[in-house]
C-alpha cells in the first residue's frame, strides 16, 4: 500500500516538477520563392503602324510605301530659226510661207499655246502713197480666235512683238505645222510694178509653249530635284541589329504626260549613319522602263518591279529612299501627243523586305518598363532579415537566333540615351539565350545577387528594363511573327529571410 502512496506522490512531484520555459520564439530562416515577372516578347510586337508588318505566311516584313511626284514638265522650248530680210513688198500686196521648224529638230507642233516668245519685224522704204501696211499670220491666232497681225506704224526700224497668249493651229489638229503662211496687205493698192516697201522678219529666239500638241523627237527632260522619296523608321533600332538579305521594291509610275516616255534614273538609299547606295532604274534584264502616254485625263501607268539589286540597296537598312538623276526621254516618232507645262509624273513606292536577316550584335531595348512596388513592411524585412537572394531566370526562345538578355533593376525610372545607353541606379544581370534550334525548351540560369545589390530591393519602387541583343548569325535567318514566335522570360526571386522579432 505504501507503494501506492509513493506512486501518487511521484505523480504529484512529476507534475510539480514540470518545467515550462518562457515563451521565447527562436529565430529561423525561410526560403521565399517570389515570382517576379512572366513576359512574352512577341516578334509581332515589332509590328508598328508604319514600316513593320506581317505577311500571309507570318514572315515579318519591313514594308514602306509612299507617294512622290516629279517636277512639272515645264514649258516646251521651240526655236524656229526664221530670219528673212529686205523682202520687196509689191504695191498689190504679197503672200509668203515662213519656215517654222525647230532648230534642234526635237519639237514639231501641231498646236501650241505660246507661253513666251518674240517676233521682230521691220518695214523699210515705205512708198509715200501707202496708207496702211500689215502682216497677217494665217495660223497664229489671238485669244479671241482672230488671225494675228502686225501693222506698220510709221517706224522704219525693227519692232518686237510679244507672242505670249497667242496660239498656233487648231487644238485638235494632227497636222504638224512646218511653215507659217502670212500675207502682206497694202492699202490702197499701188499700180502694178510699184514697190510698196521692203519687209524683214526675225523669229529665231526661243519660244516657249505652255500647251503643246504635236511630235517630240529625242526630247529629254531632266528631273533635277528628283521624284521625292519616302522615309522608313525602324522600331527598337533594329536597323542597327540586322542586315536585310532579300527585298523587293515596286514603283508604280503614273504618267500624266501625253507621250510615251523612257524613264532613266537611279534609286538612292541612305541610312541613319549617312551611308548611301544606288541602283539604276532598269528592269531585271537591264532595259529601261517606258512610261506609257496619258490618255486624256487618265494617266499612263507602269510598275517598276525591282528584285535583283534591291537587297544590295536595303542591306544598309535605309531610312530614306528616293529616285535621283531622273530623266524623261520622249521620242514620239510620227505619233501626235499632248503635253502641258504643268504636267507631272506621279509614283507610288512599295518596299517589301521579308525579315531574312544577317544579325549583328546590337541592343534592342524593350520600350515598356516594368514597375515593382514594395511595401514599407517588406522593405524593412529585406533590409533586416534578408540573408541571401538569387534571381532565377527561365527563358524559352522560339526564335532561330540566340541572344543575350540583360535585365536592369533600378531604383529610378530608367532612361535611354540617343546612343542606346541605359541610365539606371541599381544593378543588372545578364543571361545567354540559345536559339530554338540549339535549345527548344526552357533555358534556366541562376544569377546571384550580392549584399549591396540586395539593398537595392529595399527601394519603394524597382524599375525593370529588359534589353535583348541577338547574336551574330552565320547566315541569313528568316524571322516569323506568328503567335508562336516569341521569347518567353520568367523571373523568380529566391530569398532566404530570417524570421525573428
Amino acid at each position, binding site marked *: 500500500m505504501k507503494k501506492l502512496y509513493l506512486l501518487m506522490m511521484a505523480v504529484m512531484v512529476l507534475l510539480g516538477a514540470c518545467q515550462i520555459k518562457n515563451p521565447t*520564439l527562436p529565430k529561423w530562416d525561410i526560403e521565399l520563392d*517570389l515570382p517576379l515577372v512572366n513576359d512574352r516578347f512577341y516578334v509581332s510586337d515589332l509590328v508598328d503602324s508604319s514600316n513593320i508588318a506581317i505577311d500571309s505566311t507570318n514572315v515579318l516584313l519591313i514594308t514602306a510605301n509612299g507617294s512622290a511626284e516629279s517636277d512639272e514638265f515645264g514649258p516646251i522650248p521651240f526655236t524656229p530659226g526664221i530670219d528673212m530680210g529686205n523682202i520687196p513688198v509689191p504695191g498689190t500686196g504679197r503672200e509668203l510661207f515662213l519656215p517654222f521648224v525647230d532648230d534642234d529638230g526635237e519639237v514639231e507642233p501641231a498646236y501650241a499655246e505660246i507661253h513666251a516668245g518674240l517676233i521682230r519685224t521691220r518695214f523699210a522704204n515705205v512708198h509715200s502713197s501707202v496708207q496702211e501696211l500689215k502682216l497677217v499670220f494665217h495660223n497664229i491666232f489671238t485669244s479671241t480666235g482672230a488671225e494675228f497681225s502686225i501693222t506698220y506704224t510709221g517706224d522704219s526700224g525693227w519692232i518686237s512683238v510679244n507672242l505670249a497668249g497667242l496660239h498656233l493651229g487648231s487644238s485638235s489638229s494632227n497636222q504638224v505645222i512646218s511653215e507659217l503662211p502670212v500675207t502682206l496687205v497694202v492699202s490702197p493698192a499701188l499700180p502694178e510694178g510699184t514697190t510698196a516697201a521692203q519687209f524683214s522678219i526675225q523669229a529665231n529666239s526661243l519660244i516657249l509653249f505652255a500647251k503643246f500638241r504635236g511630235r517630240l523627237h529625242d526630247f529629254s527632260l531632266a528631273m533635277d530635284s528628283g521624284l521625292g522619296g519616302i522615309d522608313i523608321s525602324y522600331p527598337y533600332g533594329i536597323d542597327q541589329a540586322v542586315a536585310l538579305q532579300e527585298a523587293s521594291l515596286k514603283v508604280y509610275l503614273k504618267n500624266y504626260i501625253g507621250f510615251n516616255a523612257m524613264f532613266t534614273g537611279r534609286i538612292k538609299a541612305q541610312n541613319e549613319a549617312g551611308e548611301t547606295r544606288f541602283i539604276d532604274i532598269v528592269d531585271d534584264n537591264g532595259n529601261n522602263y517606258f512610261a506609257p502616254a496619258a490618255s486624256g485625263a487618265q494617266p499612263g501607268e507602269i510598275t517598276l518591279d525591282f528584285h535583283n539589286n534591291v537587297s544590295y540597296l536595303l542591306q544598309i537598312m535605309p531610312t530614306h529612299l528616293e529616285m535621283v538623276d531622273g530623266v524623261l526621254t520622249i521620242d514620239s516618232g510620227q505619233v501626235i501627243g499632248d503635253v502641258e507645262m504643268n504636267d507631272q509624273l506621279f509614283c507610288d513606292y512599295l518596299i517589301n523586305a521579308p525579315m531574312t536577316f544577317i544579325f549583328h550584335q546590337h541592343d534592342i531595348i524593350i520600350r515598356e518598363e516594368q514597375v515593382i*512596388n514594395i511595401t514599407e513592411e517588406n522593405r524593412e524585412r529585406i533590409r533586416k532579415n534578408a540573408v541571401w537572394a538569387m534571381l532565377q531566370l527561365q527563358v524559352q526562345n522560339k526564335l532561330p537566333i540566340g541572344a543575350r538578355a540583360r535585365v536592369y533593376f533600378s531604383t529610378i525610372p530608367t532612361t535611354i540615351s540617343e546612343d542606346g545607353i541605359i541610365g539606371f541606379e541599381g544593378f543588372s544581370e545578364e543571361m545567354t539565350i540559345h536559339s530554338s534550334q540549339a535549345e527548344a525548351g526552357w533555358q534556366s540560369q541562376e544569377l546571384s545577387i550580392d549584399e549591396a545589390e540586395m539593398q537595392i530591393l529595399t527601394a519603394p519602387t524597382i524599375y525593370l528594363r529588359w534589353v535583348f541583343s541577338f547574336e551574330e548569325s552565320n547566315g541569313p535567318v528568316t524571322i516569323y511573327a506568328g503567335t508562336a514566335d516569341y521569347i518567353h522570360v520568367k523571373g523568380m526571386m529566391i530569398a532566404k529571410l530570417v524570421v525573428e522579432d
Partner: protein
Amino acid sequence: MKNNLFAFLAALLLASPLLAFNTGKSILFADSYMLRAQGVEAAYWNPANLVRQKHIDFWAPGLNMGVSVANNSFDLDTYNFIVGQDYLEDADKQLILNKINGSLHTEMEAQVSLFGFTLDNMSFSSALHAMGKLALSERYLELLLYGNTDSLYVFDKGTTDAKGISYVDFTFGAGGFEIPLLPSEYPVLRTGFSVSALVGVANADLTEFYGYLQSGWDGITLHQDITLRTGFGGYGHKAMLGAACDLSQNLQLGLTLDNLWGKLTWSAVAEELQYSLVADSVYAVDIQDDFYVLRDERVAIADYATELPPEIRMAALWKDNKYSFSADYVQAFKHSAATSKVGRLSFGAQLLPLPFLPLNFGLALGNEAYPWRASYGFGLKSKGSEFGFSVQSIDSIFPGQKSKGVSFGSYIRLWI
C-alpha cells in the same frame, strides 16, 4: 508577426478534446465512470443508479469541475526545446514536423457545476459545458518553417478545422426503476432516465474550408474559401436512458443511451462569415494592380441546429470493500462537436487503503481521434461529504514533460 504567431500557437496548445466528459469527477477514472456516478452525477452517467435514498445529495456550485487541454503533436519537452533554441536549424524544423501527423489538433474542454441536488430517486442539476477544437494542417507549419519551397499546398477541412460550443444544461433525472415481471432467477434490472433542457451560449463551426497555395514559374495562385457559422443564444434538449443490474454482490453492469433527441438550436443570433480570397498567377510586377479578389461578408442566416448524436455506453464495475475496477466502452452513432463514431475503451480503479482516503487511477485507450490518457486522483471521504481532485496526463503515462495535454478534475459532494 512573431507575437501573433506565438499567440496562435499558444491558443492551439491550450485547446482540448471535444470528446466530452460529463462531469469533472470522471477525470479521476479516465472516463470509466458510468457505474461509479452516484447522486446528482448519476443523472449524467446512468440515471438507473438514481436509487431511492433518504439523504439529500448536494452538488456544490463551481467546485465540481473538469478542465482539459491537449493537442495531438507536441509535448512539454518539445515546447521547451523549441522556445529554448536560439536558432532553428533544418533538423530542428524536421523534428517539429515529424511530431505532427498531417494536422495539429488542439482541443479544450471545461465542465463546471452550477448547482445540483437529489430528492429520493430524483435529481435536478445544472452545469456549464464548453468545448473547442482547432486543427491546423501540417502544411501551414511547413510554410511557416521553410517558406514556399513546394509548388503546391492544399488546405482542406480534413486537416484544418475549428469548432466550439458552450451551453448550460438543466437536467432532471429519475431512476432506480426496477423492471417488473422478470423471472426470479434473473438479476434485478434497474432503469432510469434523465432529460436536459439546454441553453446555448455560443457556437462556432467551420462549415467550409478549402484553399490552396500554388507558387512557381507560373506565379503565385492563392485560393481560400472559408465559411464560419456562428450562433449565440439557443435552446435545445437531450435525454438519456440508462439501465444497470447487479450480477453479483461485486459485479455491476450498465448500459446507457445518451443524447437522445439531442440538439441545440441557435436562434438569438445566427450568422455566417463568408470569406473568399482569390489571387491568380500573381507576379511581383502585378502587385500594384488589383491582383486579388476578396470577399469578406457577415450575413445573417436562419436559425440552425447543432446536432448531438446519440451515443451508447456500456460499462462493468467490480468492487469490494477495498478495491473497485471498471471498464467503459463508448461510441457515438455520428461524429459531432461532442461525440465520435470511433469507439474508445477506458479502465478505472479505486483503492481504499484507508476507508477515508480513496486513491483513483484511470487509463483511457487511445484511438485515431482520441489520444490515450492516464489519470491519477485522490480524495477524502467522510460520512457526510467527500472531496478530491485528479490530474490526467495525455499521451504519457505520467503528467509531465512528455504529456501532450493535461486535465484537472475536482469534486465536492455533500449529503444530509
